[in-house]
């Protein structure tokens, strides 16, 4: 969200001129989850029958499933009947009335990131009377995309306007019953993004959720579907560097990517949900299912993520490499500070011939944070000549944190090559003293070491995102050493 702050600021300035007042009070569904909830949600959105049936099927499956317990995270049992499944937009009296009511640490971070005040309010979920009108920004980029034939809209809009595309691809990568949280999402997803890049088209700009204003407050169950048709390319940026607050503690999103012949999707995430206070109170639980399907020959899907937020992260962006010569990549920096717990990694499923995958995972643990890498590399019998390279590094700061690595490798084709490298290091007092004795401050010394550690991943991010990510990491680690 803080991506090129000056631009954002000028945009907000513009919007203010044309700003209008709106009443955001709306119906609120009481807590509880039943078939009726699903029907209500679907009706509320004016969805067609097929969409409702799809949701109901997911709900039915979810009821038969159990919450997974294998992840290396601990949290109190979630009461799914205590959650309200239609809560957005939120009632303004339930929100903080001004920034004064928000955790001062959060405000401090906003200021350090240079986020304008009005935007701070939006991020912190403060009740504001003025809803910024984004029409002008919206139109400019929409026109540009339309000229290229690119579809980029909210998920609800896609269900209405492009039902044939949604029906063809929805659930084709992450089936409704894939896992507990995906099933829940499939039943009750609130909204999200839909992207379709037509054949032989290079998307004329990086697509960012920030520009899709109606994506704000899509709630806890976001659904994203990106389809790159043959020979197309798209780079998609998700999230923002500013810590976002949300009173919905549980977030269970689903992201599905489909790449057809010779298509490439680059999906970058900077995730910085509120991690809770120093004791971890009030932090977001982020249980996400992200999967990309390299369906076509020579297709490529690349996941890059910088995860610094959330109290609990449960997330494994994966690639199913079906198409011959298809390529899957996963570059990740995951930070767990204070009481944060992260269990993250990837799955690379090699099915097609000569498929290749690269995994570079950098885990940083500080404070009392617990960071786990969990990765699966599966080479199917059909994946003649498949290759995987995995590098998995952990950096420890202090002596109360933990790093854990759970690599799974299954190879069923003897022509495959699978490499795995792992390392664990600790920022030592001696290293810090060495740098300080050269004239580098303690804080800069820590940043230097951490950035050096993450370099391989940062260089995969789009330029301005990379700069923001570095800044974010240094702020998230302030006071973690010395």
């Amino acid at each position, binding site marked *: 969200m803080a991506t090129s702050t000056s631009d954002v600021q000028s945009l907000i300035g513009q919007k203010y001129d044309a700003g209008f007042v709106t009443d955001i009070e709306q119906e609120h569904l009481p807590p509880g989850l039943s078939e009726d909830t699903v029907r209500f949600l679907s009706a509320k959105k004016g969805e067609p029958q097929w969409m409702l049936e799809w949701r109901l099927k997911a709900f039915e499956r979810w009821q038969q499933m159990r919450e997974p317990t294998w992840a290396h995270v601990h949290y109190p049992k979630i009461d799914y009947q205590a959650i309200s499944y239609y809560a957005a937009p939120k009632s303004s009296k339930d929100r903080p009335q001004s920034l004064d009511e928000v955790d001062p640490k959060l405000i401090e971070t906003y200021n350090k990131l240079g986020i304008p005040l009005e935007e701070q309010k939006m991020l912190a979920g403060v009740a504001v009377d003025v809803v910024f009108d984004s029409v002008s920004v919206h139109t400019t980029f929409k026109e540009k995309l339309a000229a290229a034939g690119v579809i980029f809209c909210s998920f609800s809009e896609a269900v209405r306007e492009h039902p044939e595309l949604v029906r063809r691809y929805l659930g084709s990568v992450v089936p409704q019953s894939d896992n507990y949280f995906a099933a829940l999402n499939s039943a009750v997803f609130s909204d999200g993004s839909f992207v379709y890049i037509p054949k032989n088209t290079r998307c004329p700009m990086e697509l960012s959720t920030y520009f899709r204003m109606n994506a704000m407050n899509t709630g806890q169950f976001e659904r994203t579907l990106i389809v790159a048709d043959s020979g197309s390319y798209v780079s998609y940026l998700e999230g923002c560097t500013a810590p976002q607050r949300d009173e919905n503690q549980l977030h269970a999103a689903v992201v599905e990517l489909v790449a057809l012949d010779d298509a490439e999707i680059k999906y970058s995430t900077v995730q910085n949900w509120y991690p809770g206070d120093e004791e971890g109170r009030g932090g977001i639980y982020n249980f996400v299912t992200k999967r990309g399907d390299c369906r076509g020959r020579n297709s490529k899907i690349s996941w890059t993520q910088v995860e610094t937020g959330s109290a609990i992260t449960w997330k494994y962006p994966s690639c199913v490499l079906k198409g011959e010569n298809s390529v899957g990549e996963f570059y990740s920096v995951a930070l767990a500070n204070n009481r944060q717990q992260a269990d993250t990694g990837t799955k690379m499923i090699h099915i097609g011939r000569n498929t290749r995958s690269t995994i570079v995972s950098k885990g940083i643990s500080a404070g009392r944070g617990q960071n786990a890498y969990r990765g699966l590399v599966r080479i199917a019998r059909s994946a003649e000549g498949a290759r995987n390279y995995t590098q998995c590094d952990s950096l420890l700061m202090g002596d109360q944190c933990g790093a854990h690595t759970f690599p799974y490798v299954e190879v069923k084709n003897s022509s495959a090559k699978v490499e795995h490298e792992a390392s664990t290091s600790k920022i030592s007092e001696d290293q810090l003293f060495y740098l300080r004795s*050269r004239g*580098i401050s303690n804080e800069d010394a820590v940043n230097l070491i951490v950035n050096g*550690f993450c370099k391989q991943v940062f260089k995969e991010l789009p330029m301005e995102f990379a700069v923001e990510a570095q800044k974010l990491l240094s702020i998230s680690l302030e006071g973690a050493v010395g």
Partner: protein
Amino acid sequence: MLKIENLHVEVEGKPILRGLNLELPQGEVHAIMGPNGSGKSTLAHVIAGKPGYTVTQGSVTFDGKDLLALEPEQRAGEGVFLAFQYPLEIPGVNNVYMLKAALNGIRKYRGLPEMDAVQFLSLVKAKTQVVGLKESLLNRPVNQGFSGGEKKRNEVFQMSVLEPRLAVLDETDSGLDIDALRIVAEGVNQLRAPERSFLVVTHYQRLLDYIVPDVVHVLAHGRIIKSGPRELALELEERGYDWLTKAAVA
């Protein structure tokens, strides 16, 4: 320039330095020699501000400034440099990038504008020639995969870029063969200047064949027990430390 008075230092409650006095005038090279465990490295570390040492008595001043009150990076800003006995490896951090951060940290401390990349790179280029550091090492992670000699040469290279006013060399000769020793010493000699002082900590006199000191101090039992001209080092080589330390105890 550097003045140490009655310095008492403990590590984990154990006294290491016990009333050390030393004066190092500007432009001079002083050697600190002494048997193992006499407190030589402790002295070097305390001057640079390494955590873990407790100063119980005495003072260390640099141009009249109380060094002990400053953080290590502030001491670097004042012009203190420590060449490590065991230079640390910093994985992933580019050697030149680290040095640029260091130089700009020092410049910031002195209220000078930061040096831009172009200026900095031409400076680096000139300095690599001074110490004969392979250019291929410049863009490698700090000290990672460097040989023992390359690490020490990298220390001298850093020193040449940061241009300290007081350089403390902590057993720079350790682990070096005679050729590497000569190259490192030549680098140091080129940095000798009227405004720069050196404190050369060493166990063996052979380093002093190449870096010729103005004064030799003998450190034993946490104190300077004898100071003398360069010839004192030769005498130590011949007779060992025993005759001196015994005399000091008696």
